[in-house]
């Protein structure tokens, strides 16, 4: 079995997503702490944030651990939401998009987040949005400043509080 076949044999379920982001998070954190590998850490952790937001949205809509993420994304219900919310950039990887989709859904069901929580979420998503881009993969980058620490804090918060986003 090739590695690609091995990946394909793993079910891309919401439950798997949650395990995957724990793994990516630990890997990303390790990369982040060393200057030489910081760009890789930022890149990887951005996907953690995207997965957390994506899972929060689908969990809030009632999806279960066994549900396949691809099927959820390809479903008519989600496509209608995506059409309504629209995406400023990066399509399904856009953390802005997932934030807006989640807030929209919560408001639609009269279950908006507590104000302090929503404000913190919006602030941290903004920080992650400013620090990460899918396009990073094409760039050779070095980070000598300290901005990455804010980014790290934002990702940590999002990962640690993910259940509060959809419960």
């Amino acid at each position, binding site marked *: 079995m090739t590695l690609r076949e091995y990946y394909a044999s793993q079910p891309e379920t919401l439950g798997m997503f949650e395990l995957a982001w724990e793994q990516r998070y630990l890997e990303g954190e390790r990369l982040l702490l060393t200057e030489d590998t910081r760009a890789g850490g930022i890149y990887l952790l951005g996907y953690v944030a995207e997965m957390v937001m994506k899972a929060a949205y689908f969990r809030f809509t009632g999806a279960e651990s066994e549900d396949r993420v691809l099927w959820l994304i390809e479903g008519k219900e989600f496509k209608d939401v995506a059409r309504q919310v629209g995406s400023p950039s990066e399509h399904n990887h856009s953390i*802005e998009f997932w934030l807006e989709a989640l807030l929209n859904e919560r408001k639609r069901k009269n279950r908006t987040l507590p104000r302090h929580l929503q*404000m913190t979420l919006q602030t941290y998503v903004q920080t992650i949005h*400013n620090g990460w881009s899918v396009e990073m993969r094409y760039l050779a980058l070095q980070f000598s400043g300290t*901005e990455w620490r804010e980014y790290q804090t934002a990702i940590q918060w999002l990962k640690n509080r993910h259940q509060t986003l959809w419960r």
Partner: protein
Amino acid sequence: MSRGHLLPVDTSNDADLLMTLEQEWKKPGESTEPILIEQPSGAEGYIRLYVLWAKWQSIPQQQRSRIIMESYKKTHSLDDLLNVTIAMGLTPDEAREMGLVWTTE
């Protein structure tokens, strides 16, 4: 391919930028910039803020967002603030590169 380096953040002009934005939110001035855009998001009742301003040139994106949100917070209600999903500061050239098209009143 070239290698880039991010420099430490310079916050020395933040107070001036903040004050100008506060004034502009309260009462738009005569100058052509900054251009303040409150764009309805696809999410019902939420908006995205774009501030187009050549003065952003040397300021990192995160700092621009912080200044915009701070100015908005000082001039709007908490409910208004909670409706902002994303606040982006862009120079007009950056906005054009992003494909934004705008008009002013």
